[in-house]
């Protein structure tokens, strides 16, 4: 594997009595797009604020691009592009002024400022609004200004806190495409609580809950961890009672749980849960044939990331 860009070691952050981040450790390698998932208040933003040197850890340490976030914070900040949650920007500046300000803060001078703004502004689709006040922009454009600003100084690492929150589906698709493109050459960490986003953009995901790291792996790996498999079964009703069918289905060996759910008219729809090791499709089909039920649909549904996420994050909360 390529070099480690971010190394977080037993990171802990306490706000008074409250532990927002609890001994979290992980590594991010060059070229990875890491999705940082968790319910609201799980400690995602706090971790990102520590990595960008806005807050100091209570215990543990973190290195970004080989520099310690506490002892060498200036070096870290030179190499990181950060998009804070809710994209705070100076509303009284124009887009161009804002980007010039950021470029100057990063020590860029002369022609480099203009050429860099032109390049990044073009990539983020800001050409049309360069002269507009930031405060007058729509949320989607503000987000793009924030992203452009984060990438302006060509950082090795991008840290994006909820980059797509509050955007419409078109804007979300655009931002995701942009992140994916950037992720080819840079290391990206992005936080979100939208699961399809992780599938669409990330090569690896971390799930954090109650300040603790509860999962770390590729989306496929995490899905495979889910033990139950769900089957969907649609049978034409023909006047038969749903309860009788349900009873028969529950009787099939390997079925843990059977539930009638709402479905199309004139048919009964069931969700059947079984363990992931055995394929129950054959037995379910046989039951239908034996009882002469007109089978309209039978499918196996892979465990979704939603299930993984829900199981991991609600379980932790009950314990603590």
């Amino acid at each position, binding site marked *: 594997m390529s070099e480690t860009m971010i190394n977080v070691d037993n990171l802990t952050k306490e*706000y008074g009595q409250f532990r927002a981040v609890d001994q979290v450790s992980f590594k991010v390698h060059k070229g990875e797009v890491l999705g940082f998932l968790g319910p609201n208040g799980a400690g995602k933003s706090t971790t990102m604020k520590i990595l960008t040197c806005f807050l100091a850890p209570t215990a543990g340490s973190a290195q970004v691009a080989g520099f310690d976030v506490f002892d060498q914070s200036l070096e870290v900040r030179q190499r990181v592009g950060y998009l804070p949650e809710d994209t*705070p*920007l100076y*509303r009284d500046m124009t887009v161009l002024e804002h980007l010039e300000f950021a470029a100057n*803060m990063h*020590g860029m*001078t002369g022609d480099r400022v203009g050429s860099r703004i032109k390049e990044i502004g073009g990539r983020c689709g800001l050409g049309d609004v360069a002269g507009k006040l930031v405060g007058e922009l729509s949320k989607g454009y503000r987000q793009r200004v924030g992203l452009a600003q984060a990438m302006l100084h060509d950082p090795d690492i991008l840290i994006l806190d909820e980059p797509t929150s509050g955007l419409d589906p078109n804007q979300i698709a655009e931002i995701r495409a942009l992140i994916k493109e950037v992720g080819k050459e840079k290391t990206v960490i992005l936080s979100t609580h939208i699961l399809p986003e992780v599938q669409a953009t990330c090569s690896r995901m971390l799930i954090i809950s109650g300040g603790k790291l509860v999962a770390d792996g590729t989306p496929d790996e995490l899905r495979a961890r889910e033990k139950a498999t769900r089957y969907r079964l649609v049978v034409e009703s023909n006047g038969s009672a749903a309860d009788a069918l349900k009873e028969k289905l529950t009787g099939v060996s390997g079925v843990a749980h059977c539930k009638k759910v709402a479905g199309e008219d004139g048919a009964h729809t069931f969700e059947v849960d079984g363990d992931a090791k055995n394929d129950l499709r054959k037995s379910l089909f046989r039951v239908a044939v034996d009882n002469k039920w007109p089978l309209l649909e039978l499918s196996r549904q892979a465990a979704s990331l939603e299930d993984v996420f829900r199981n991991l994050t609600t379980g932790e909360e009950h314990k603590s």
Partner: protein
Amino acid sequence: MSTTTTVARREIRTYFNSPVAYIVVMVFMLISGYLFFNQLFLEKQAELRYYFTLTPLIFTFIIPAITMRLIAEEKGSGTLEMLITMPVRDWEVVLGKFLAGMAMLGAIVGMTMFYGITVAVLGPIDRGPLITGYLGLLLMGGSYVAIGVMASSLTRNQIVAFILAFAISFGFFIFGQIVQFAPDWLAPVLAYLSMGNHFESFSRGVVDSRDALFYLSLIAVALVIATASLESRKWK
């Protein structure tokens, strides 16, 4: 260091893009103009002494109005996080904000040069006290600006920042006024801490390094506290 000037430039631009600067300049000109022309037309005296005597008091509320937004606004709107995660040291941010406040002070004080010119047109002018008086205004005003920056760093609410800065500034002003009522042991301390006392010699044309040192150390202390307050976010 270039980050300091970048921060300062941005703040100055914000001042003049918003009505705040113009309102504050107008209010200050209104008050000081009244004081000056009152003297000119009623007493038939073209001089700046009266203006100089009352400025320490006027500054106690004019300058907090300039400085209140400097850091508190960024804390409130969240832009502080964006600013401070750029490669900039905390003291550079504070210094940049202070310099922007000083530029604003310079603009206000500069406008009153008009009175000096009026006096010069009407008769021979004693240049010494005029120049040292303006130097004193900048030094004393600088102390108020630094106090304002400090107050602004302590809260995310601009109104609180204004009231706090006003209270502290007014405290330093009132020390000079209550010296005569204070017990003997306290009087010299109060006299030393008074904003007006140190300014008085400047307005008389005397530059005493002790007076300058008083203002400069007040500025330094206030800015160090502001920096510490900014850094304290890390430990909360």
